[in-house]
């Protein structure tokens, strides 16, 4: 395996023709026998969190633990989900970019990021992409491209709810929501290959119905579709009502 540590984004992008981007490495190392080359992103200064207008911008190499230690007013859904994502040691290494590239449907943080209407900057040919579109197109949407930043508009409120086997387990069913100027976005996860953003609906009942629909074909080895559909609706209703009350 060839290992390179590019000093600039341009160098990194150039390397991606044959190399896999290496951020924290928590997923990539386990697949290392099949990897021919990696481009380690640690020297690209992509680990900053900054205010950007009415939102926040995150370098793609921001570590999950940084979300819990940041002073910039990280949305609650993002903090709770980051904490739920992994233990301290992994949070100290795993990155936002890595989550977007490799996170699955049971990733609490990915569910929260989807609810927060996160946008992702890809190089080359700089481009803000909606996270939902990006996830739907994986892995092709990331082929030869480098995630450098994420941005989101700060919601007035956000929240995350899940059901798992234990408090720290990954979710079997989860829902996250965020509110801006009276509008709300809800995302659900726990099944399939990625979380899903719900179609906008009226009130808690509308979102709950939408969640039930989203889980209609969600049966797998971890839960039946009937269970997920019922619980997805309940969690969605709860998180939406909780934010509405505030």
């Amino acid at each position: 395996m060839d290992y390179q540590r590019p000093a600039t984004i341009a160098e990194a992008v150039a390397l991606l023709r044959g190399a896999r981007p290496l951020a924290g490495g928590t997923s990539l190392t386990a697949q290392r026998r099949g990897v021919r080359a990696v481009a380690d992103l640690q020297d690209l200064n992509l680990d900053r969190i900054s205010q950007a207008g009415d939102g926040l911008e995150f370098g793609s190499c921001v570590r999950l633990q940084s979300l819990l230690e940041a002073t910039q007013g990280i949305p609650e859904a993002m903090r709770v989900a980051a904490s739920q994502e992994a233990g301290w040691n992994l949070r100290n290494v795993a990155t936002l970019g890595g989550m977007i590239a490799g996170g699955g449907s049971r990733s609490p943080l990915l569910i929260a990021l989807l609810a927060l209407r996160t946008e992702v900057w890809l190089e080359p040919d700089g481009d803000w992409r909606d996270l939902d579109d990006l996830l739907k197109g994986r892995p092709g949407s990331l082929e030869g491209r480098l995630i450098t930043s994420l941005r989101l508009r700060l919601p007035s409120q956000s929240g995350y709810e899940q059901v798992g086997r234990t408090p720290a387990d990954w979710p079997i069913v989860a829902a996250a929501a965020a509110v801006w100027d009276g509008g709300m976005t809800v995302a659900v996860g726990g099944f399939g290959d990625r979380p899903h953003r719900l179609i906008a609906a009226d009130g808690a009942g509308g979102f709950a119905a939408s969640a039930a629909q989203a889980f209609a074909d969600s049966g797998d080895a971890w839960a039946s579709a009937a269970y997920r559909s019922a619980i997805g609706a309940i969690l969605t209703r709860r998180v939406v009502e909780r934010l509405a009350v505030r």
Partner: protein
Amino acid sequence: MNLTLVVNGVRTELEVASDSTLLNVLREDLALYGAKHGCETGECGACAVLMDGRLVNTCVMFAAQAHGHVLETIEAVGEHPEQGWRHTAGLDPIQNAFVETGAIQCGYCTPAMILAARALLAREPSPTDADVRQAFSGVLCRCTGYLKPVQAVLRAAAVRRGEAVDPIDAPIPAPPDLFHASDRSGPGDGGPGGMPELLTRTRVMPRIQLSPQSPPRASIGKPERKVDAIKLAQGKPAFTADMEMRGMLVAKVLHSPVAHARIRRIDAGRARALPGVAAVLTWQDIPRVVYSTAGQSDPIPGPLDMFSLDSKVRFVGDRVAIVAAETEAIAEAALQLIEVEYEALPALLDPRQAMAEGAPRLHDEPEYVNFGDSDPSRNLAAHIHIDIGDFEKGLAEADSVIEGEYEVPKVQQVSIEPHVTITYWDADDRLVIRTSTQVPFHVRRQLAPVLGLPPKRIRVIKPRIGGGFGGKQEVMIEDVPAHLTIATRRPVRYETTREEEFTAARSRHPMRVWMRTGVKRDGTLTAHEMRVLADTGAYGCHALTVTGNTGSKAMALYVGDGAYRESPNIRFHADVVYTNTPPAGAFRGYGVPQGFWPVERHMEKVARQLGLDPLAFRLKNALRAGELQPFSTAWSEGRKPQPEMIHTCGLEDCAAQGALAIDWQAKFGNADWHRVPGAPHLRRGIGVALVMQGTAIPYLDMGGASIKINEDGSFNLLVGATDLGTGSDTVLAQQAAEVLGVPLDDILIYSSDTDFTPFDKGAYASSTTYISGAAVVGAARQAAERIRLRAARMLSRDASGPMAASEIRLAERRAWTPDGRSVSIAEVAMNALHHEDQEQIMGVASYVSPVAPPPFAAQFAEVLVDIETGQLRVERLVMAVDSGVIINPLTASGQIEGGMTQALGYAVCEEMTYDAVGVARETDLRQYHIFAAHEMPELQTIFIETIEPSHPFGVKAVAEIPMDGVAPAVGNAVRDACGVDVDVIPITPERLWAALRRHEAVT
């Protein structure tokens, strides 16, 4: 590639493969063995070190990523305070706190925990309990239940802040007086001994209700530091894999991708031709010797149905070929080059189909050796039928007959150290097997024929073990490197991956259980029946004995009342069948947790159906002291049964003290308590289960010990007993220290080396403190008698007359006369070894017990149920245990805390499942979730001391019983919370939700 690292303050230049993980470089290139291998996906955290002050997992990081960074490993933290003439600062306060508080059991995760604590305290000098648990959130521990490690960090923080901390060996807190129950404080509260108030109290000691007959002791009953704690706190290279040998090869196994097939063709030619491959072995290359991997005394009470390599595979994960190569990468590449053609056979995945007409037959090999009623033509690995009394008559006498069906899952032991073995030829061409095993002597005996060597040409060494829990009571992998060492003449290391632990190691037998109970209106049991269908997987290791325990322990607890107490009516029937799934085997509790889930769920249903108080109903029917263990009259693992009397039973006090601690009276049946203000979807519940276990296997399992004196009055104690992290070396040494009147520091214990230590059956059946302890006491008494004889002679010279040895008392490192004169034991040693009638003062003893005195316990649980989603949260576990005399309250309570935690996983989240073609769903520690520090309920341990007459110090077992009661107590608490019965564990959210919906539909 070239790498520059700053490791522990030293700048280091290295040339490594660019795909090397940091863990491999630390261990193999830098010989820093404190970072441990526990998984390959970063979930267990045993590999963690500090990089630039942050805790990171080295198994999921390329070494190249650390280039230019500053690393700190456990090797940089503290050192042993005694280094001869060289002054040292000693251990770090965190290490000291871990040692003092009993926070270290197997010690495999300890370096990562200590480094996590260093990173935490560097940022937050005054952490809360929750802060510490977050710091540990990525370091999984399977031994401790996290309580003591968390307390250790809080204590260390206080020390670093310069605050006073309470001594760990303060008087043991007693539970509240049952008749004046005003004391409701938690464990460790208050200031025993009139100590001043402290800012930080270290809450690691259990409460103990001492027996009034308990004599004062010097070492027994004291919270002594574990004898191996200092080295484990420093991450010393004490484990099997912590060594390198020149020319050592790495072994890998090719596993079957199919559940059932004949190997039609296998060609290893391309693999053998790969540069760096030293050997590839298939079934065609080694002798075909049938054996059992179950590590048990001779004769093994189970069928011989396995081969090192076979021409047939019986589960996804079964062995197909084994490889030895210069590196792990080459070995893995070689596996890909082995060409195999499988002739698929129908797979049997459902145990209910196993004995059906036309079911696929797993074992048609002519070499198969039956044991008992095993019948491979019916896929039957074991069959048990036990009738005690007259079950049908008892049933006819009942006012009600209540039936139920229950199910328990296949679960994995998940020792954080995987299975690992290193083999090599020594200078005498004897095969040395250095292995992480619970049964070194069984390894030697059972592998000898498989390898074509007599036992005398094999030496088995057991270093420290990173947890076993029964999974290493299996001669499971030692043959792999041994065959390869024979083939290559070179040292070979084989270490399983976490995935292999799930797909190719052992597990707990899953069972379906049917219960039928006859009961009178007043709650007297008249007849009690259990029928079991157990799934042993592809091989019959432990099939008979595990399932025998399911009945003989769990069904022994309730005998009935009145006349039924004299003559209980109990029936137990079990079929243990083969399926094309990974083999089950030994797992802490050994069949008993499988039994107590149905028994205690069923007892709850019976009590509620009759409108009886569940606790009183249980106690009315439970076994008592002075009664026969009912199964002892009918069952002894395939040998002749010998009736055993129960001499000690503290069950009623366990129930009373546990109830008091959890405030049972105020909560049970209190509708207000069950509801959560402001959360209409939540319900609280409280539940109880009574349990019993056994202590050792009577008339069979033997332990030996030898002891000799040294010139300074210290003693070398050699035992075959196998400390797998439980602290057995410590409690054995404490027993020797008590007899010899010396502090624990003067007992130098060495365990488990088949060349040097006496025989011991190994660490299983909760037997070590009891069986091996009795052997230690016997050996120590012999040595003590020689010391007394010599001391009497030495002290008679300046006395008025001859002194009898029987008058000499050993205490405080001296031999004392009744009138207060004394000679030191060191002087006695010098006299014996150098000065007069020279002799080696020593003792050798062994012990086999005629009884298996059961420990008893009352397990309580408090839960919170979300009645809309089925989400269950266990908030509190209280266990009151009668384990006889407690030798070491720290290690014993550590067993209970860790056991309850493991059992909590059995209750709510652990489960191994397979798809329609037998492929495992759970292959890592993300999918197979074990409890982490930051999601634990509150744990509390209470000991009810009884003095078991069959042991010199009155001990009974402690290790396994905490596995038995948590699941049913949680299940009963769920019933209490929301009125529904979940009869299958784990109680997943969906199972509970489905039960709630069924209940809703009915009501």
